[in-house]
């Protein structure tokens, strides 16, 4: 068995990048402050030193330029890995992502298939206010031609990022910055991948199914533990990939439990929770014991002082679960 080490998510992501840059000489990193500084969250620390300024580059402050240049690099045979410093700042780059990157393979009849991995820290819980807290995944899930991936712990972070880097499709890789350091775990030192397209059952249960991704996974596990104290047996699924998503695993679970609660940070309306509910109820309708529910952020911009009210908490999840189970 291979050696492993306890590390946090930043360390795990850094390892994945290091291993991939080592193995694939066409892989390059581009982003704001990712070079000598190693990124504002230090995910790329040490990589410029090791692989040179030609392969690990500080970009001018323009997300559209970063994404657009990456598409061109990929057309030219490189494998760009770009960092958008905060997911909130992905919007200047969204035209290049949804109209170019996502559609290039299709529109060229697969003559070209630019492959870019877009890494970006997302989510709330760091007192970041409007612009350092958003979870814009739904925009990308709704865009055919992209994969959308969320790790929820260091092991998954390394394995999913390596899988994303190997994958021939463009991937938007959302990193839960709130647990960048808080999430600690054993991670094999060797190269390994965790398959995309798969949901992961983190805890088995019979009374209701909880689905989440990224930073909401540990919160859901916490809620499930609380629920256990009240005699409820909750299944927790880490969706991990949102596009395409493994609805089969969720459907199997809900067929048993008859109940589903999806938890996410993004505003509830038109969030991914809606998709999961709509998709799952279509298939498992005869087995449902209660309406499928979602607990998302409120339909407001992300707040500052009142942030703790905004973010779904284990306690609120429990409140929702109780109601579903007693429905």
């Amino acid at each position, binding site marked *: 068995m291979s050696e492993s080490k306890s590390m946090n998510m930043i360390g795990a992501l850094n390892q994945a990048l290091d291993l991939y840059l080592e193995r694939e000489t*066409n892989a*390059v990193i581009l982003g704001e402050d990712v070079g000598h500084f190693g990124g504002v969250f230090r995910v790329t620390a040490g990589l410029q030193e090791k692989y040179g300024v*030609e*392969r690990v*580059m500080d*970009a*001018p402050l*323009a997300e*559209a*330029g970063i*994404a*657009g*240049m*990456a*598409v*061109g*690099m*990929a*057309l*030219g*045979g*490189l494998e*760009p890995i770009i960092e958008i410093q905060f997911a909130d700042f992905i919007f*200047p780059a969204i*035209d*290049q992502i949804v*109209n*170019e990157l996502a*559609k*290039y*393979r*299709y*529109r*060229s*009849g*697969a*003559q*070209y*298939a630019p492959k870019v991995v877009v890494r970006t820290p997302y989510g709330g819980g760091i007192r970041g206010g409007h612009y350092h807290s958003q979870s814009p995944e739904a925009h990308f899930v709704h865009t*055919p*031609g992209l*994969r959308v991936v969320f790790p929820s712990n260091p092991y998954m972070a390394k394995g999913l990022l390596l899988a994303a880097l190997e994958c*021939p*499709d463009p991937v938007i890789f959302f990193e839960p910055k709130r647990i960048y350091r808080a999430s600690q775990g054993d991670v094999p030192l060797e190269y390994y991948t965790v398959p995309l*397209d798969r949901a992961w059952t983190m805890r088995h249960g019979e009374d209701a199914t909880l689905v989440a991704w990224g930073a909401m996974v540990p919160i859901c596990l916490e809620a499930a533990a609380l629920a256990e104290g009240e005699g409820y047996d909750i299944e927790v699924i880490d969706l991990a990939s949102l*596009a*395409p*998503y*493994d*609805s*089969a695993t969720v459907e199997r679970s809900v067929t048993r439990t008859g109940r589903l609660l999806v938890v996410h940070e993004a505003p509830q309306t038109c969030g991914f929770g809606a998709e999961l509910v709509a*998709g799952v109820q279509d298939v498992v309708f005869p087995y449902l014991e209660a309406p499928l529910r979602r607990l998302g952020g409120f339909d407001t911009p992300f707040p500052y002082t009142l942030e703790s009210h905004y973010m779904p908490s284990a306690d609120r999840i429990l409140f929702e679960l109780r109601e579903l189970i007693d429905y």
Partner: protein
Amino acid sequence: MSGSADTASVGATKAEFPEVPFAILNADGSCDPEYRELIDDADVVRVLQTLWLNRVIDQRFLKLQRQGRLGFYMTSTGEEATTIGAAYCLRDDDPIFLTYRELGALLWRGVPLEMLMNQLIGNGQDVNKGRQMPIHFCFRDWAVPSISSPVGTQLPHACGFGYASRLRGTAQVPLAFLGEGTASQGDFHTALNFAGVFRTPCVFVIRNNGYAISTPESQQTASESLAIRASGYGFPGIRIDGNDFLAVINAMGQAVERARGGGGPTLVEALTYRIGAHSTADDPSVYRSADEPERWRALDPLERLTAHARWRGLFSEEDERAWRESCEARISALVTACEAWPPPPLETLFQDVLRDPGLQLRRQRDRYLAYLRVREPDAHEVP
């Protein structure tokens, strides 16, 4: 839009491009002997033939569109010296990032006419599988990446490709075209700024044809030129007469050489004019007088290169007539052949989104096929 020679080169960039004249061809087709060597006789003829082919295609396809046999078309009539001239200076593997108005570059590169036609029709032979509107070409075997409608998005791609070319040692020099309207987009700024910072080998060519649909250049910028913007990115920008084939290949030749030699990017602003409508969906009579295009016909790049050829003793009127007729004949045959192809198979609708379709798309496809089986039980024998 003025085209006088004193705007030939601009401010800060002069030093790096001391010798690029605004125009080279004289009114009678002659030129200064030192510039004659820019192109040999055989190539003058080949270029003129390409120009004619471009023009015949434009005329014929406009008609096809009016007859409802093409969904859409956009001409490049009047701008061929720029489009062909720029392509003329490239190596065959230098990628050309196109907009929708550079048919000439494709013709010069040698993309077979039937491949163009299949794209325009969107039939089952189209290498792009009939997925894009007419004119949105992509021919990887000819180093032509995919055209997209959102203007300006191709500019950072050229910059990135140049970076890849240098890092991978392929020595390719990407060329990106844009219209003057497109120079207003954010992507113009980020692309040129990144190209300056990373000193990527690439050349940006602005076809300043006076209009963006109905909007005149004067409403796009208050700047005296677009070329001048290059100095704000730290590389040379030059303005040339884009209807003067020799001026184009002179400037472009140097820009490409400079890029290939590690000297970084260049911005070339070629002054030209959009003789036709913006597209088959446009009616320019609403926003410009009929004599404006007429005035520009006097500066027609085809006339000017023809005069030059005659000055060299090449491409007689008889040659011209014969060539035109052969173009017409080729196109007639082509249209008939390409219209006969069936549309792309239904399967292609669901392919190439990702390398393999995900669960959601597979389910959508299965459901659609189920519908088709009910709807037309025999017609769709789909896997």
